């Protein structure tokens, strides 16, 4: 395989104009991976009126944003979102594409991987670029995708040696959130979106959201107890 791309892409998940934490965490990780590949980190931002999200991504290391805005794209829907990514990936063939392992990421990434015939590894706990030998073949600067499997009883390192595009999903809170001290220069490439009749095959009738009341990730101390404690009031701090 010749002339592999050195671009790393992160799909930025958003709701009501706010980027998901996991997407920003992935930008921080993607920045390191892109650095090792000597390539750019690009954020793919899809939605309605999401330019401010695009601006946010430069604080976390994006070098360029691929921005797709349309009123039909306000809420995530599998068919239009996957069509956009399929077209972009087939056109630009990035080396790595990262998604949050959220309900959206786990709905979208496999559909895109299938369409673009890319390798996809779910729920990675670690991502690393390294050169390895696989079945006697030198694989230079390949993405090592490390994840638990078999109900957590094994830790597997997955690679995609023969494909141009390597994809992975990562859960929220796994990668460290580390904004840049000086944000990157802004570079936004707007890409047009043409609605398609197939977009209406699945319509959203209603949505209900309840924000997490307890923010475990932001808590300085977490105290956990087993079933043997019996009651919750034993946790009362003195």
């Amino acid at each position, binding site marked *: 395989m010749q002339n592999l791309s050195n671009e790393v892409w992160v799909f930025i998940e958003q709701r009501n104009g706010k980027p*998901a934490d996991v997407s920003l965490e992935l930008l921080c990780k993607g920045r390191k991976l892109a650095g090792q590949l000597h390539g750019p980190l690009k954020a793919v931002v899809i939605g309605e009126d999401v330019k401010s999200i695009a601006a946010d991504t430069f604080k976390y290391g994006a070098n360029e944003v691929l921005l797709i805005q349309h009123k039909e794209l306000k809420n995530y829907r*599998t*068919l239009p979102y*996957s069509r956009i990514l399929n077209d972009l990936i087939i056109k630009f063939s990035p080396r790595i594409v990262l998604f949050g392992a*959220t*309900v*959206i990421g*786990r*709905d*979208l*990434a*496999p*559909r895109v*991987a*299938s*369409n673009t*015939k*890319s*390798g*996809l*590894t*779910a*729920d990675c706990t670690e991502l690393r670029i390294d050169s*390895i030998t*696989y079945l006697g073949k030198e694989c230079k600067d390949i993405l*090592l*995708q490390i994840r*638990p*499997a*078999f*109900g*957590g*009883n*094994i*830790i*597997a*390192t*997955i*690679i*995609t*040696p*023969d*494909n141009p595009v390597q994809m992975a999903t990562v859960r929220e809170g796994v990668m460290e959130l580390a904004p840049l001290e000086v944000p990157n220069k802004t570079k936004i490439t707007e890409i047009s979106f043409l609605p398609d009749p*197939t977009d*209406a*095959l*699945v*319509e*959203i*009738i*209603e*949505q*209900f*959201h*309840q*924000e*997490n009341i307890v923010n475990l990730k932001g808590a300085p101390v977490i105290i956990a107890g087993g079933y043997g404690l019996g009651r919750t009031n034993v946790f009362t701090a003195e």
Partner: protein
Amino acid sequence: MYNSIVLVKQVPDTANISGKVMKEDGTVNRSKLPAIFNHEDKVALELALQVKEKYGGKVTAITMGPPRASDILRECLYMGADEVFLISDRKFAGADTLATSYVLSEAINKIGNYHFIFGGRQAIDGDTAQVGPQTADKLNIPQVTYAEQIIDIKKNKVTLKRKIDGGHEIVRAALPVLITVIKEAADPRPFSAKRVMAYKGAKSLTDLEKLTEGNSLLYTDTLIHEYRERNLFISTLTMDDLELDVDRCGVKGSPTKVHKVESVVLAGGNQTMVEPTKDGIGTLIDKLMEDHILG
């Protein structure tokens, strides 16, 4: 009338690791884990059966796996499936989700005539949740993942409640559609005793071949005919039956490869046995006080 095809998988029971499957070094001996029916797939079958009961239609269960995966197909028959298919071929071995979804989508095309494809959200061995959406993509039909309730079906559209991060949404999808379900969607019904009696003798091609092995009085073809007549033959679809592209199956068709596997060591520390006697307890208390754990 709505016909459903349900994707089911036999998985190693990774949730209940007992001492019996542990190796001496504290790692799990994966080949010794009992094989079970992936629970969320059973929930998917239950939903398909409920659709059939309410609206009429046919329920077909299919699995891709080794011959012994016919165990869970028999269980599908016990629950109420009308027909089952085992998709099995040595050339399918080592498939990742992309190669698996290719084989499944071709099998679904071969079976045809469906309104719904149901499957569990994910299987407990890989937990990837990828095969559903990848199959939907190859069939070029819409998908609804994380479904937790079918609200209604009318005019060739299904209204569903599905889980999303931090809430849920109601969606309406045109048929045919692929739906993956979470465990809250339904409680799988117990096996019907009548159906167990009727189908416990259901056999796949491999099962019948085993019967004829070393018995010159039995012929596989005759047995297949006989079992089919009695509605007890579990049809097997192989690579040739499905006219598949060999380069897209098994290890060859899988872009992802396992480079390395490290077993998680579940070994405990040193153990001391305490006799359940007054003296034993006394020794335990002394020991705990000595270590400043007590007192």
